[in-house]
Structures are given as C-alpha cells and as structure tokens.
C-alpha cells in the first residue's frame, strides 16, 4: 500500500511512451497501453485487498513552504480511494482493451491511446489525492484529458464544439470549486482533508461558511458530473469515440463529482442546507434527464441522459445522507453503464449508425452483444438480483429514511422512466425487423467482447457486496473506522420500498414492451397525447436554447461591446501613442542621414551655441 502512488504512474508512462514513440509503434501502441493499465489494475486490486485488513495509509511530504505554512503533496489510501482506484483502473483497462478493436484502422490510433493514458493517469491521481489542492490539480488534468478525447475527431465540427462546450461548462463548475477551496483554506488554513474535517468538527468554521463552501464545492461537482443546470455538455460529449464515452462519461470522470462530494462528505454532513441542496439538485436532475431520455433517438444520447440521471441518483443518495448508497451506486453504475456504452459501441461498430430508428432486429445478428446489452439494461432498470437493483434500493431507502418523501417519489418516478427508456432502447435496437441499411452486420472481434463479458459478469454480481440478504459488507467496510461516516452507513430500508421499486421498474419494462416490443400500444400513444410535451422533451427542455438566448447572448453582447471599446477606444489610444512614437522615430531616422558632415555640423552648432551662451552670460569674461 506504501507504493500506491505507482498506480497512476503506469498510465503516465504509457502516455509518455506513446507521445514519444507512438508514431513508430502504430497499432502496437495498444499493447503498451493495455499492459501498463493492466499493471495498474493488478496493483489496485492488491491495494484494495490490502486495505481490507489494514488501516488507512497516508503519506505526505512538504511541497512548498511559505512562512509557517507547509503545502504538502502525497497520497492517501482509504476505503473510498481504494475502491475508486479499483473501479477506475478496471474500467480503464477494459476500455484500453476494447479500443484496440473499436479504433482499429484509425489514423491517430496511437494518439488515442496516449490520451487514454493521460486521462487514466489524471483520474487515478485524482482519487488518491490527500488534499484539496492536489485534487484540484488532477481535477483539471482530468478535464484536459476529457477535452482531448471528446475532441478526438476534431475534424468534425460537432466534436470540436462538443469538446469546447464540455471544457467550458465544467470550467464554470471548477470556478465554484476553486472559490470553495480558497474559502475553506481561508477558514481552516489547510488543504488537507483531515485538517478540514477536524476544523469543521471542532466548530472552527461558522455554519454559514460551511454551507457556502460546501455548496461552492458542490458546484464543481455539478459541472463535472453533469448535474442540472450544467448537464448540457455531457450528451454533446457523445461526439467522442464510444470507448471514451464508456470510460469518461460513464465510469470515471463524471463520477469524479460524486467522488468529490463523497470524499468531502463530513463537510457536507455538517450543513443541513448543503446536503439538502445536493439532494434536491440530484433528485431533480435524475427525473429531468430521465424524462429527456424517453424520447431521444440517438443510442449514445439516450445512454448519456441515462448517465446524467443516474449521477443525479448518486447525488440524491449523498444528499440524503446515504453515503454508502451513493458510493455503492457509483460502483455498480460504473460497471453496468460502461457495459452499456461498450455494447452500444459494439452495435455502432456493427451497423455504422447511432440512430436507433435505423436499427432493429439485431438480436440474432449480434449473438454476444445482445445478451450483454440486455444484462446492462436489466441492471440499470433495477430488476431484482442484478447489481443495479441493490444499489438503487439502497438509494431509495436512503431517500426515504432521510425524510424527503418528495425526493423519494421523484426517485421512484425516475426509476420508472429509466426502466422504460432503457427497454425502449433495447427493443428498438434488438427486436422487431431491421430498419435501415444493415447488410454487413457482424459480431465484434473478441478483443471487444472480452471486456464486455467481464463487465457483464460484474454488472450481475457487483451488487452482492452490499445486500440486505447476504450482509452489507461494502457498507460496513466503507464507514469502518470513520465516525463521521458511521451514521450515514447502510440503511436498512423497509421491505415495501424494495417491492415498490421492483414493481415500478417492472411496470416500466412492461410498458416499453407493450409499445416497442409487442406494439399493442401505438408508439404515438405518448407523443400523441402530449404533442407539446414530446417536442419539449425532444428538444431537451430547450435548456441549450435557453443558454444560447440568455447567457451566451449576454456574453456575446458584452464581448461585442468590449470589442468595440477595444477596437475604437483602446486601440485608438494605442494607435495614437504608436503613431506619435513612430512619427518621432521617422523624423529621427530621417535625421540619421548617415552623412558625417551633417553630424559634424549639428555637433558643432551645438558647441557653438554653448560657447556663445557661455560668452554672453559671463564665464571666463569676468
């Protein structure tokens, strides 16, 4: 565990190697990336198992010393970090493997792997940071990695725009995080998590300040995790290659926001208002994104909105003081959402389109992808015995126990929506007759199916680490030795919640089956009854347009105004000054005729003038 710092180093080495020798290695770059992330994965597993038996390991060294203040850097392996290390390195390894098939033949194959390495390094570095400052550094690095990967197809206008949007939107959140961080530092004189928590416990920080900093930091999480109102970048980010979507926008980066809130949970739990904000934003995002997901026709966009919705779920859980529930769902979601994305990538790889209207009847053609996708769909819908069921149940229980009946209902409705749109997606893609051009449909190579199988297995079994039936191992472990979290451990929800959740999701599946599977209900049943509603949903509640009309327009207006000032006022002054200097210089250089006689004449006239003045005013005449 002492050498946990090596884990992020492997992908960094991969990045550096590929940066230097990528062009020569070409497709062999994949092996570099896969092997080094495998090393990370093995190490993370070792660390995770070690962590079961040993206490938290922290090491720091002084990085900067300013007066009495020591800025430290180092790493920490606590339960949450070890778990995150495992999740990130696993998903990263699988995505590395998967990409070898998916990206095959791409001209910038090695660049893709280099970026993957950079991103993985940043993400792994993020999850072992022991202090806020280090977290922030890696947080931004993660943003850079995501920017590069989303904009990987930079020759596509949409990809370029999406990359910019992702960067700017998350940046808005980062500003919040930064201010929150600065305020915390001002209050507690430290960036260390442990010091901050101690200060909060000891009541050194006023209640208002805790609420303020917590909410500001939460804004950072909102940006990164695609929560409302900064969620719009995440669906657009689907312009990146699909493995990237699986890695960044399902399992790791978007989970960073949740991770941040989780790792600062003692801070949040000290303020009721902050927790409430987290819960409300999370709950609203969950149902908001789920409702948009109902009508989208792009396979990746549906998954993206589903991700936003699920992240909302996690936030809701954390906000309802369900620390274990949130982290648990983070883990299971990483597995089944990565599975879904990879399966979707496999489908796209096979039919070369992302529009589900052009798919259909792929069940027989994609013998492996189909069942795996089904597993993912079942898991996310919360069908009993799969991982999603347990974690979702945990969240619902947390919401109920947390005393937010409204949020509980919201979560329930969101669960219904989730089940409905996921199965809508499944039925549209895999059942019925083929729509669109599907001549060369073939199953993906084994290098792509292998990671999906692993994730499929995990999507099924991952839930059993924390169940009401076989013990709550994960929950106990996560809060072990941490009194601040112990109160927010596993919630033993009433049985009726579990039954209700199951019924709701099954209802959603049944409805989807009626409409898209059996087609006994017209597809227009929903859109017909609420044409307006359908349009609104299809346009994602016009949030993008709203931003375009308000913030973007205002910013543009201000920019135009400032540009006007710049061109006419500032530049005018500048031009005046430069013109004056230039004129002076021109006159001066004209006088520099290069003729010795002129120079001599001028010099002598000066001397003569001095002599005359001297003679007239006295001097030696007196």
């Amino acid at each position: 565990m002492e050498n946990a710092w090596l884990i992020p180093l492997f992908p960094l080495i991969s990045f550096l190697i590929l940066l230097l020798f990528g062009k020569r290695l070409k497709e062999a770059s994949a092996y570099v990336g896969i092997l080094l992330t495998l090393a990370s994965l093995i190490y993370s597993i070792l660390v995770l198992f070690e962590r079961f038996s040993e206490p938290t390991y922290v090491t720091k060294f002084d990085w900067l010393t300013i007066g009495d203040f020591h800025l430290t850097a180092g790493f920490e392996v606590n339960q949450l970090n070890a778990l995150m290390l495992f999740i990130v390195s696993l998903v990263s390894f699988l995505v590395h493997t998967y990409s070898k098939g998916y990206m095959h033949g791409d001209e910038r194959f090695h660049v893709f792997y280099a970026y993957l390495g950079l991103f993985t390094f940043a993400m792994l570095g993020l999850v072992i940071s022991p202090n806020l400052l280090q977290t922030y550094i890696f947080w931004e690095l993660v943003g850079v990695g995501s920017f590069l990967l989303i904009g990987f197809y930079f020759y596509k206008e949409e990809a370029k725009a999406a990359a910019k949007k992702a960067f700017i939107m998350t940046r808005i959140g980062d500003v919040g995080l930064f201010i929150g961080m600065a305020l915390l530092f001002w209050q507690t004189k430290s960036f260390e998590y442990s010091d901050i928590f101690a200060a909060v416990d000891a009541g050194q920080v006023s209640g208002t300040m805790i609420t303020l900093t917590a909410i500001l930091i939460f804004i950072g999480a909102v940006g990164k995790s695609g929560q409302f109102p900064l969620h719009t970048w995440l669906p657009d980010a689907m312009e990146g290659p699909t493995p990237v979507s699986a890695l960044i926008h399902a399992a790791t980066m978007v989970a960073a926001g949740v991770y941040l809130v989780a790792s600062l949970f003692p801070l949040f739990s000290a303020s009721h208002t902050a927790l409430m904000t987290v819960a409300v934003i999370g709950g609203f995002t969950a149902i908001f994104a789920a409702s948009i997901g109902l009508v989208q026709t792009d396979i990746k966009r549906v998954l993206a909105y589903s991700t936003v919705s699920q992240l909302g779920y996690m936030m809701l859980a954390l906000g309802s003081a369900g620390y274990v529930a949130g982290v648990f769902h983070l883990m299971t979601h990483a597995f089944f959402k990565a599975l879904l994305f990879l399966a979707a990538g496999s489908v796209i790889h096979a039919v070369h389109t992302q529009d589900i209207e052009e798919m259909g009847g792929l069940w027989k053609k994609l013998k492996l992808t189909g069942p795996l996708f089904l597993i993912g769909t079942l898991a996310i819908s919360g069908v009993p015995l799969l991982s999603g069921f347990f974690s979702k149940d945990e969240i619902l229980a947390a919401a109920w126990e947390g005393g937010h009946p409204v949020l509980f209902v919201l979560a329930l409705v969101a669960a219904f929506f989730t089940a409905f749109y996921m199965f809508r997606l499944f039925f549209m893609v895999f059942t019925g007759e083929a729509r669109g051009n599907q001549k060369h449909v073939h199953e993906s190579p084994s290098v792509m199916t292998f990671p999906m199988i692993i994730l499929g297995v995990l999507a099924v079994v991952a839930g059993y680490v924390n169940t009401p039936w076989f013990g709550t191992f994960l929950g106990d472990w996560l809060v072990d030795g941490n009194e601040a979290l112990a109160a927010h451990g596993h919630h033993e929800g009433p049985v009726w919640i579990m039954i209700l959740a199951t019924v709701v999701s099954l209802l959603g599946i049944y409805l989807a089956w009626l409409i898209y599977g059996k087609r006994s209900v017209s597809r227009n049943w929903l859109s017909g009854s609420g044409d307006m509603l359908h349009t609104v949903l299809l346009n994602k509640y016009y949030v993008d347009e709203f931003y375009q009309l308000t913030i973007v327009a205002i910013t543009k207006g201000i920019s135009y105004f400032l540009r006007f000032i710049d061109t006419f006022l500032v530049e005018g002054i500048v031009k005046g000054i430069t013109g004056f200097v230039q004129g002076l210089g021109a006159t001066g250089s004209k006088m520099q005729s290069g003729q010795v006689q002129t120079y001599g004449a001028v010099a002598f006239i000066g001397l003569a003038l001095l002599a005359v003045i001297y003679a007239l005013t006295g001097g030696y005449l007196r």
Partner: protein
Amino acid sequence: MSSVPASAFLALALILFCIGLYGALTKRNTVIVLISIELMLNAVNINLVTFSKYGMAPSITGQIFALFAISVAAAEAAVGLAILIALYRTKKTVNIDEMDTMKN
C-alpha cells in the same frame, strides 16, 4: 621686445581654424575635407608656438608639441587618403554625401 601682441597671433589662428572648420563641414570632395582638417591642425600649431614664446612660462616644449602634432597630422593624412582610395575603389566616388553607410 616684439611689437606684435600675442593676441594678434591667436586671432590669426582663430580665423584659420574657422576657415578650416567651415571647409570641413561644407565641402563635398573628401580630399578637400581632409585638407581643411589639416588647416585646422595648423591653426592649433600656431597657438602652440605662440604660447611657447609669449606664454606665462615660455619654453621650447611648445615647439616640440607642435612638431608632434605635425607628425601625427602627417600620419593622419596618409591614413585618411588610403581610406579614401579604398572607398573610391568600392564606391566609385569621393563625394562625402554619397558615403552614408552609417545610415543602415
């Protein structure tokens, strides 16, 4: 004693100096400019020799100084002319206003 006051010699030297100066700063031919400079040196020599006789402490040193000045002037004239010839070879002119390489 001498019937010519020292100031007369000095005035003569001043006039010759001014003529030389005017020539050096206005003439176009570089040879004439060089000669004008010689004239200025001569005016200085007159001063030196005058003070060697009419100074506060008359002594032979003034004349010796004049001799040194003459030899340096001779050297200067030779080098100056050599430079002029080298210049003429490259620029095909001896007009001082066409020699403006300092400008660039």
